[in-house]
C-alpha cells in the first residue's frame, strides 16, 4: 500500500473534506521549505505528517494556521479557499493549533488561561465562574480530566498539553493541529495523549499530527503523508498494512548519498570510551540511560538516531556542559567524567555544538575573538592575563583564509555572517586546535550546500590526521556518507552498531525508530 509518488489515492469515502491543500509552495530565499504540496484531511480523521527535522512540516502547518503566507497554492477549509489572514482568522474557521511550546501563562489557573483572548465579562467583572464551568463541561465531554483551578505551573507537562487541547476545543475547533505533541511527553503521557486523540477523532474532530516517531503514526493515524526536503514524497492511505520499516525508508528517502570521498579508515587506539553513562535532561528525566560507546583514533563514528533520544544530553555531558549521574567517560587514559567545559576542551575535545547561535558563537564579538572563544586565555593569545590582540588577529586571518570564511575581514561581528559562514567559524576554531576527539553535532544543519561539502571534507581530513570523530546527526545521509562505523541511539542507549560499509538505510531507519525485534 506504500506509494512514493506525491499523489495519494483518493479513499472511497463520502466523508466531508475539512482541509484541502493544493500546490502549496513556500520559499525562504533560495531554500524551498515547501514545494508543490497537496494533501487532504477529512472529518474525523487523524492524518500524520511524518518527516525528519527540517523536512518542512512546521512551515506547512504554520501556513494552515495563518502564521505564514504561502508563495503559491491554495488552502481550502471546508471548501472555502480564501486566504487565511492570521491565526485569529484560522481559529474563526475552526482550526486549532497546539504548539510545541505551550502558549500558557504559568502563574494563571487553567480557567483563566482558557479565557485569555476571549474574556467574557458580567457587568465589567470577569466571568471566571463561567470559564470554570466551561472547563468542567469540556473536560467531561472529551474525557480530558483537568482541574480548572489548578495553576498551570504546578501541572505536569502532559496536563498542560491537555489544557492547550481544551483551549483549542473551546474555540470550536474541528481541525486540530498538533505540532510534535509527544516530543515533550513521558511514555505514559504519550500513551494517554494517543488515547485522547483517538477519542476526539471518533467524536468528529480531525487531527493533523506532526511527528517523526513512526510507532505513534502506526498507533493512531488513519492516513499519513511523508515529507522530505519540502516535498510530499509519499503517502499511505491504509496504515493497517504498513510497517515502521516502510515508513522509515520513505522518510529517509532513496536519494543518492551526498558523496564524500574518503579512504578506508585506519583506526588506532581507543580515544573515547563511554561506559554506562547516565545523563538527565532539563526536566530531570533520564535522557542518556546506560550508554556505551568507544571511538578510536582515525575513525568517524556516526551516531544515528531520531532527535530527542538523548543525543544532545550525551554530547553536552561529554563536553563538560552537563553533569552526568552515572557511568564514566574516558579520553585516552584520562577520566573526564566530571571535567568542566574548560578542562574537557584542554584535554583535547573539540566540540561543534548543535546550536551554533546559542552555544557556538558570541554574535557581538568579532570573528577573530570567536575563533579563540575557548582558547583566549592560552598563549599566544594571552600573555599572563593580558590578551594579545596581534596573535588573536593573526590566527583569525589565517583561519579565515584556510576555512574560506566569507567576510570583509576578521574584525566584523560574527553575528553579521550568514549561517554557513558562522558554522565555518565554529568548525575552524574546533578543528584548528587539532583535538584528539572531535564531536560534531548536526554540523551541517541549516548551512548551504557548498558549506556542507566543505565541512564534510574537513571532518574526513581531521579523521585522516588521526582524530577520533563522533558525528551526531539527524541526517541519515550525512551519517551514511561520512561514518566508518554507525551506532544507533534510541531511548538514550546504543541499540545497534554496524559497519559503515554494510549499512542499510532501511535497516538503520528501523533501528532509529526503536524497532529491534528482528
Amino acid at each position, binding site marked *: 500500500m506504500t506509494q512514493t509518488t506525491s499523489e495519494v489515492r483518493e479513499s472511497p469515502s463520502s466523508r466531508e473534506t475539512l482541509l484541502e491543500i493544493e500546490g502549496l509552495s513556500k520559499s525562504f530565499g533560495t531554500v524551498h521549505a515547501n514545494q508543490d504540496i497537496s494533501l487532504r484531511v477529512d472529518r474525523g480523521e487523524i492524518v500524520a505528517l511524518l518527516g525528519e527535522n527540517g523536512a518542512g512540516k512546521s512551515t506547512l502547518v504554520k501556513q494552515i494556521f495563518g502564521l505564514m503566507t504561502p508563495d503559491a497554492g491554495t488552502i481550502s477549509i471546508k471548501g472555502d479557499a480564501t486566504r487565511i489572514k492570521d491565526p485569529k482568522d484560522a481559529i474563526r474557521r475552526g482550526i486549532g493549533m497546539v504548539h510545541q511550546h505551550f502558549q500558557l501563562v504559568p502563574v494563571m489557573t487553567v480557567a483563566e488561561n482558557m479565557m485569555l483572548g476571549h474574556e467574557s465579562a458580567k457587568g465589567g467583572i470577569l466571568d471566571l465562574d463561567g470559564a470554570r464551568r466551561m472547563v468542567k463541561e469540556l473536560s467531561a465531554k472529551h474525557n480530558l480530566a483537568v482541574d480548572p483551578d489548578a495553576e498551570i505551573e504546578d501541572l505536569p507537562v502532559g496536563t498542560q498539553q491537555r489544557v492547550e487541547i481544551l483551549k483549542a476545543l473551546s474555540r470550536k475547533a474541528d481541525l486540530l493541529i498538533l505540532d510534535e505533541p509527544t516530543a515533550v511527553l513521558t511514555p505514559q503521557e504519550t500513551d494517554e495523549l494517543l488515547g485522547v486523540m483517538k477519542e476526539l477523532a471518533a467524536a468528529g474532530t480531525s487531527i493533523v499530527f506532526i511527528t517523526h516517531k513512526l510507532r505513534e503514526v502506526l498507533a493512531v493515524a488513519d492516513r499519513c503523508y511523508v515529507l522530505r526536503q519540502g516535498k510530499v514524497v509519499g503517502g499511505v492511505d491504509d496504515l493497517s498494512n504498513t510497517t515502521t520499516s516502510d515508513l522509515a525508508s520513505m522518510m529517509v528517502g532513496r536519494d543518492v548519498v551526498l558523496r564524500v570521498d574518503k579512504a578506508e579508515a585506519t583506526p588506532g587506539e581507543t580515544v573515547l570510551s563511554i561506559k554506562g553513562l547516565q545523563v538527565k535532561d532539563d526536566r530531570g528525566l533520564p535522557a542518556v540511560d546506560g550508554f556505551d560507546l568507544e571511538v578510536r583514533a582515525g575513525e568517524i563514528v556516526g551516531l544515528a538516531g531520531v532527535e530527542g533520544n538523548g543525543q544532545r544530553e550525551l554530547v553536552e555531558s561529554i563536553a563538560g556542559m552537563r553533569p552526568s549521574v552515572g557511568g564514566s567517560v574516558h579520553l585516552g587514559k584520562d577520566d573526564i567524567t566530571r571535567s568542566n567545559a574548560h578542562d574537557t576542551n584542554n584535554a583535547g575535545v573539540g566540540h561543534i555544538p548543535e546550536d551554533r547561535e546559542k552555544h557556538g558563537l558570541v554574535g557581538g564579538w568579532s570573528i577573530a575573538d570567536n575563533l579563540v572563544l575557548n582558547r*583566549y586565555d592560552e598563549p599566544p593569545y594571552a600573555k599572563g592575563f593580558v590578551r594579545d590582540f596581534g596573535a588573536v588577529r593573526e590566527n583569525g586571518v589565517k583561519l579565515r583564509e584556510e576555512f574560506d570564511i566569507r567576510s570583509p575581514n576578521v574584525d566584523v561581528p560574527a553575528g553579521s555572517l550568514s549561517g554557513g559562514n558562522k558554522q565555518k567559524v565554529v568548525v575552524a576554531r574546533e578543528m584548528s586546535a587539532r583535538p584528539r576527539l572531535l564531536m560534531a553535532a548536526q554540523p551541517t544543519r541549516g548551512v548551504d550546500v557548498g558549506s556542507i561539502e566543505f565541512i564534510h571534507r574537513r571532518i574526513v581530513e581531521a579523521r585522516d590526521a588521526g582524530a577520533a570523530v563522533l558525528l551526531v546527526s539527524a541526517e541519515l545521509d550525512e551519517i551514511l556518507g561520512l561514518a566508518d562505523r554507525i551506532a544507533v541511539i534510541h531511548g538514550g542507549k546504543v541499540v545497534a552498531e554496524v559497519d559503515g560499509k554494510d549499512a542499510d538505510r532501511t535497516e538503520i531507519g528501523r533501528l532509529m525508530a526503536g524497532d529491534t525485534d528482528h
Partner: protein
Amino acid sequence: MADPDRPPAKDASPAPDAAPAPETAPPAVPVVAERGAPPPPTGVLGFLVRHQAIIVPLVAVVLAFAIGAILIRAQGFNPTYAYQLLFTHSFFTESGLLATLQKTTPLVLVGLAVAIPLKVGLFNIGGQGQLMAGGIGAAWVGYALRDLPAALLVVVAIAVAVLFGAMWASIAALLKTTRGVHEVISTIMLNSIAVGIIDWLINNGPLSDPAQPFPASHAVPEGARLTPLGVLPWGLPVALLLAVVVAWMLNRTTLGFELQTVGRNKFAAGYAGISATKTTLIAMAMSGALAGLAGAFELLQIEPYRYQNGIAGSLGFDGITIALLARGNPLGTIPAAVLVGAMRAGAPTLQFQVGIRPEVVDVLLAITLLMVSLPVIAKWIFRRHTVKQTQLAGSWGA
C-alpha cells in the same frame, strides 16, 4: 577611544554567501534562510547610528535641560540665568570647583560599580548600600585604630572600606549564584538593610559618639583626614586612575573577555568553559569594592570626617544615572560624573542666590535618567541597523 560596542559600520556589509544552491539540488536540510547583516544605513541615519554612543547621552542631557528650563520658567525664574549661575559656580569659583570635584570622586567610583556588572548582564542597584558599608567601615576603623600612624591609618581605613563594600555586594552575588535571587531585588533590599544597621550603629550602637547632638559616629583623627590640596581632593586622581584601570581590564585582559562574554551570550560562555558563577561573583565584588572606596573618600575627605545620616546622599543612585549616561563605558563615567557632580555642587547656590528650590537638580537628573533609558527605545528603533543579540543589559550599558 575605540568603542567595541559600536554598531557595525561600513565594513559590515552582508557576507557574500558560499556558492548558491543550484535550483535542482535543494540543501539536504531546508531551513529558514539565514541572512547576513543588512547593509549599514547611510546618510544622516548612518551618522546617528555610528555615533549613537555619544549622541544618545548628549541628546538626553540637552532634552533634560530643556524640560528643566520649562520647570524653572514656571516658577517665574529665568532658566538661562539659572543654568549660567549653576555652572559658573560649579566650575569657576574656588569653593564651587572643590565641591564639584569632591562630588565627582565618589560618583566616578559608583558609576564604575554599576558599569562593570552591566557588562556581565547584571544590574547593580546596590551602589548606595555598598558605599554606605564602605563609609561605616572607614568610620569604624578610623576611630577604633586612631592610635596608628596617620598614613597607615588612612590605608587601613580605605582597605576596610573596600572590603566591606565588596562583602556587601557579594551577598547579592551569592544569593544570585546559589539561590537564583535576582540581583535587582537583592541589591535594593541590601540598600535598606544597610540603612537600618548603620542607623542603629551610630544612634545608640557601638559606633555612636554620644557627644554629638544628632546620630553620628566618632570623627577620624585629624592626621587621617584627607584635606584637599587646593581644589583637588585626594580621591579624585585615584578615581580617575581606577576608571582607566577598569577600562583596561574590561577591554584588554582575559578576565574582561570572560566578563563580557558572559554578558553577551551566557550559553556560549558556558560552552567555552567560562563560569557564570565565577564572573558574577568577581564582577559584584569588584563593584562593591569600588563603591566601598567611594564611601571611604566620602568619610575621609569631606567634613565632618565622621559618619552621620545623609553623608551618602543619593550618590549610589546617581551612579546608576552616570553608568547609563556613559552607556556602560568605564571612561565615559568620568565626564558623566563631572556633569552630575557639578549639578549637585551648584544646587545650593541656586537656592541662596536665586531662590530656586535645589530639588530642581533632582528633577533634572531624574529626567536625564529617563532620557538615557531611551537607548532601549532608540535601540528598538535602530534595531534593524545594529547587530542582533541585544540583551537587556546590553541595551542599557553596552
